[in-house]
């Protein structure tokens, strides 16, 4: 039963401490809000993904072949563990859009003539399925169509093998295969729907255009047991039985870039949705503890009186614990409201990167309940320590004034040399800090946590900037990169020099290879570089150019780690094109890189491995400076062997616009939240110390101290404690940035930990702003304190 009178007392006590109440509730609100929003988005995203993958039959495995007759699909279907299969044509394409001077890379995927359910099905967003009357009908990826202003009825040109076709757009669609729209080859960080297209064409038309009549070049399938080990066995069988058709690649669908990004995002969300709220709630609980210990000490006689009136220890504990519960309740409700709003905002943000049907913010009652329970639990735990002691006091003892504080010397006093030289004000400040070790520690901790969070947020943006400038400015110097379907003689690549405005070119040979070292194996793209490479100069993390040996491979550290290799070892290498023969290749060196799992070799060494001499399938080119002439792009559109064209600056801008902006916004919010931790804890601990020392303030006022003089004593305390907190926080921030860079070390990318000294200064300055805001409130309170009354009450 709720005691109405005590409830009224509680509410009035809280109102008297409105600053504490507001700042604490805010911290709890943020913590719970983070939990609600992230847990909500996690469930929205994972649920939507699960339904999408299931309803549109996202496969378990993908087999790429040179050319498999249609009946080979039936054969795979009969293999053990295979539940369903589909053969299809998957071919890279160059798309030529009206009004665009540059050709756009894309893939063409075959679909049945009539809309029947298949693996990796598509969801029509507008228009219709193929009419069956016209071969040259295309259904476009919805995001690509929208970005380029294409609708059912638009006409586009696309290059398939050596022929350009004019196609009629009949519909637009989404597919579980391209939730995160990047090319299956990977290599990009952010989707660029304007510059990567997916075209769905009728099976017959695509087979004819790609010289695959009656055949497929990809088999996708579902397995009974989709675990990695079970599928490895299935792949073994497939490679063996389908070898005559040229098995180029077998892979798990979950390793496909879109699926991988989505899975990594979900894992990240799950971790963040635990870590972030915990940080805020722990700080809130500790600060609450400081406040409650003080309130209980202040209300010692009230507790004695209540006990004398016959209130039990239990009911007094419940009464004081209710303070925490109220804060938990308000913070929890605030967190639910804020969290639900943020969930919506996050879903909108995610939609820019991930295309899923019915990806909407849903209302999850159980998450709200859990959020509320966590909020209440932390808040109640925060009050317990302070309350427990007081509730156990005998009423007679509670009625007596508390025993005088231990008046022993504080730590700095034991160093007389130091102590004697301190001005009086600093003696007061240091005594106050050391006499309340718990409170001072909470303040140091809060300030440490806030500083570390702010620094790691700033450092993350620096890392991204660094990564972008490293990859796009220091390593890559070419203006455009043209990919060819098959390796050509290196001399033919010089042909590009004949194109207008091209000033220099450099060939490259990119070969997908299986690298094997005993039980460790990995499929990677090995990059063959010419000896005096100028346009693409891979560097190690320290910025030194990598020297490519005549023979052997240089591996990125991450790859060497995965394969358990060190320089001096040899690796079994099997290229997936050309000869496809296993050879032993020496590891000449390893190098620390940021993106992908790179392996480098000399271009001729690599050519020999695929049975060629001096071959290349990538041509990089530079244009004469300051030319805006792009007519060469037009010429490239029609080259049958060209499968992709990338412009370096465009990729950089795109990355900056999507990733950079999102990251900037998220990190600003993070800085604000972390600042609130600092603000709230400084405000509360100082308020407590002010309330404890009201008499001291009164006495000092009598002695002629101005409010500013007194504020200086309190802000001095805050200064010392927070300087310690900030310094420790910077150290922790650096460590945090380093460990985050380790945590974000995936096969796709590795974030460097970037620590600029000026960032440390900026971080400290941001902290000073938040702490000063709290100090301003304290100053106002000191100025308006009715000190004469304080002195009278004690008489």
């Amino acid at each position: 039963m709720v005691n109405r009178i005590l409830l009224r007392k509680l509410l009035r006590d809280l109102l008297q401490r409105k600053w504490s109440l507001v700042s604490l509730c805010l911290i709890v609100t943020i913590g719970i809000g983070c939990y609600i929003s992230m847990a909500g988005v996690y469930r929205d995203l994972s649920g939507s993904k699960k339904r999408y993958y299931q309803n549109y039959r996202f496969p378990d495995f993908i087999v790429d072949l040179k050319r498999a007759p249609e009946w080979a699909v039936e054969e795979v279907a009969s293999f053990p563990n295979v539940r369903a299969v589909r053969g299809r044509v998957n071919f890279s394409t160059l798309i030529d859009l009206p009004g665009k001077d540059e050709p756009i890379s894309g893939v063409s995927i075959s679909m049945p003539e009539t809309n029947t359910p298949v693996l990796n099905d598509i969801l029509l967003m507008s228009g219709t399925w193929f009419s069956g009357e016209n071969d040259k009908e295309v259904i476009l990826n919805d995001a690509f169509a929208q970005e380029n202003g294409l609708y059912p009825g638009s006409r586009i040109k696309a290059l398939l093998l050596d022929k350009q076709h004019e196609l009629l757009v009949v519909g637009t669609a989404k597919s579980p295969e391209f939730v995160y729209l990047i090319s299956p080859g990977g290599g990009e960080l952010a989707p660029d729907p304007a510059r990567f297209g997916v075209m769905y064409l009728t099976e017959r038309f695509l087979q004819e255009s790609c010289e695959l009549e009656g055949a497929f070049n990809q088999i996708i399938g579902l397995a009974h047991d989709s675990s990695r080990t079970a599928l490895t066995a299935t792949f073994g069988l497939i490679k063996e039985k389908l070898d005559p058709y040229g098995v180029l690649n077998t892979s798990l669908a979950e390793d496909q870039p879109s699926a991988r990004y989505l899975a990594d995002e979900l894992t990240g969300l799950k971790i963040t949705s635990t870590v972030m709220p915990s940080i805020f709630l722990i700080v809130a609980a500790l600060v609450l503890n400081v406040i409650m210990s003080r309130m209980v000490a202040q209300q010692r006689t009230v507790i004695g009186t209540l006990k004398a009136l016959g209130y039990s220890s239990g009911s007094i504990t419940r009464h004081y614990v209710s303070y925490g519960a109220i804060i938990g309740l308000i913070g929890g409700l605030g967190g639910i409201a804020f969290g639900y709003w943020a969930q919506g905002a996050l879903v909108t943000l995610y939609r820019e990167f991930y295309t899923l049907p019915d990806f909407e913010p849903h209302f999850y009652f159980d998450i709200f309940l859990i959020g509320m329970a966590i909020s209440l639990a932390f808040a109640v735990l925060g009050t317990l320590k302070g309350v427990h002691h007081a509730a156990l006091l005998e009423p007679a003892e509670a009625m007596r004034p508390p025993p005088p504080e231990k008046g022993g010397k504080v730590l700095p006093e034991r160093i007389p040399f130091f102590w004697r030289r301190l001005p009086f004000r600093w003696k007061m400040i240091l005594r106050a800090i050391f006499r309340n070790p718990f409170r001072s520690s909470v303040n140091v901790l809060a300030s440490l946590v806030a500083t570390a969070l702010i620094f790691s947020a700033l450092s993350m943006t620096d890392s991204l900037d660094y990564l972008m400038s490293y990859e796009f400015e220091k390593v890559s110097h070419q203006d455009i990169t043209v990919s060819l379907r098959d390796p050509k003689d290196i001399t033919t690549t010089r042909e590009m020099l004949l194109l207008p405005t091209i000033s220099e070119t450099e060939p490259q040979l990119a070969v997908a290879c299986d690298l094997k070292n005993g039980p460790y194996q990995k499929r990677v793209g090995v990059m063959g570089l010419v000896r005096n490479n100028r346009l693409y100069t891979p560097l190690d993390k320290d910025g030194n150019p990598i020297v490519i040996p005549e023979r052997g491979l240089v591996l990125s550290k991450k790859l060497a780690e995965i394969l358990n290799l060190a320089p001096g070892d040899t690796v079994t290498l099997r290229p997936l094109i050309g000869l496809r023969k296993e050879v032993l290749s020496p590891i000449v060196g390893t190098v620390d890189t940021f993106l992908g799992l790179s392996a480098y070799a000399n271009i001729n060494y690599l050519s020999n491995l695929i049975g060629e001499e001096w071959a290349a399938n990538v041509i990089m080119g530079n244009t004469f400076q300051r030319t805006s002439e792009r007519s060469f792009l037009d010429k490239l559109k029609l080259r049958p062997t060209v499968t992709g064209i990338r412009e370096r600056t465009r990729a950089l801008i795109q990355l900056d616009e999507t990733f950079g902006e999102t990251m900037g916004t998220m990190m600003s919010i993070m800085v604000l939240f972390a600042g609130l931790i600092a603000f709230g804890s400084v405000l509360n601990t100082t308020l407590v110390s002010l309330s404890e020392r009201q008499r001291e303030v009164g006495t000092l006022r009598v002695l002629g101290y101005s409010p500013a003089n007194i504020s200086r004593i309190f802000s001095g305390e805050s200064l010392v404690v927070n300087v310690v907190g900030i310094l420790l926080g910077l150290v922790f921030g650096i460590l945090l940035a380093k460990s985050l860079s380790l945590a974000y070390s995936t096969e796709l990318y590795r974030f460097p930990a970037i620590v600029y000294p000026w960032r440390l200064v900026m971080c400290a300055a941001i902290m000073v702003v938040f702490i000063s805001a709290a100090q301003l409130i304290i100053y106002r309170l000191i100025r308006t304190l009715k000190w004469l009354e304080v002195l009278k009450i004690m008489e």
Partner: protein
Amino acid sequence: MEKKQIILSVKSVSKIYRMGEVDVPALRDATLDIYDGEFLIIVGPSGSGKSTLLNLIGGMDRPTRGRISFQETVLSDLSDKDLTLYRRNRVGFIFQFYNLIPTLTALENVQVAIEITQDTLDPMESLTMVGLQDRADHFPAQLSGGEQQRVSIARALSGNPDFILCDEPTGALDLEASKNILGLLVDLNQKLKKTVVLITHNSAISEIGHRVALIRDGSIHSIRSNEPPKPVEQISW
């Protein structure tokens, strides 16, 4: 005064406080009976152990040795829970510094006591009895010392206790206000037949009680009867 029934008896009670390293005896071997309906004054200088005695009688503390029995119940045998019930239902406290809860109004300060008891007076009625019906909505800070003490009396009364314990109830008040409060206590004793135990260091006050116990150095030094007690108007200090 005719022979009265003993409501509470203190037998050979000692209380020793441990202050850091040293034992401080606050009460030694005190023996005292309290009769139903009497106005008992315990008088002694400060530090003589009178507050300790009052706390023990009120169930706010436990004796180190000896026994205190209320009617048939031995207080030192009671669990914390039962001791809480004893304070709640049997005893009304009045303190020197009123001990009102600053964030509650006069009326609410009375209500706080009756929220947890069954057989209670109407809180407004209690306030009317002490003449504060017009100030029910005032907070303690808006009341004078005498008025605050009257709220405290109303609070003690409202739970309908068997006896009322007053710890220096006029210690913080001027003469006029003090006489006002003492008159109120005598009224309670005479009209409502409440047993009142009052401790004070002020021997002038001892004149108004039926009996006076003198306490010195933690022991009951002597007990005398006032026949008859002096009316409150006639005392002065």
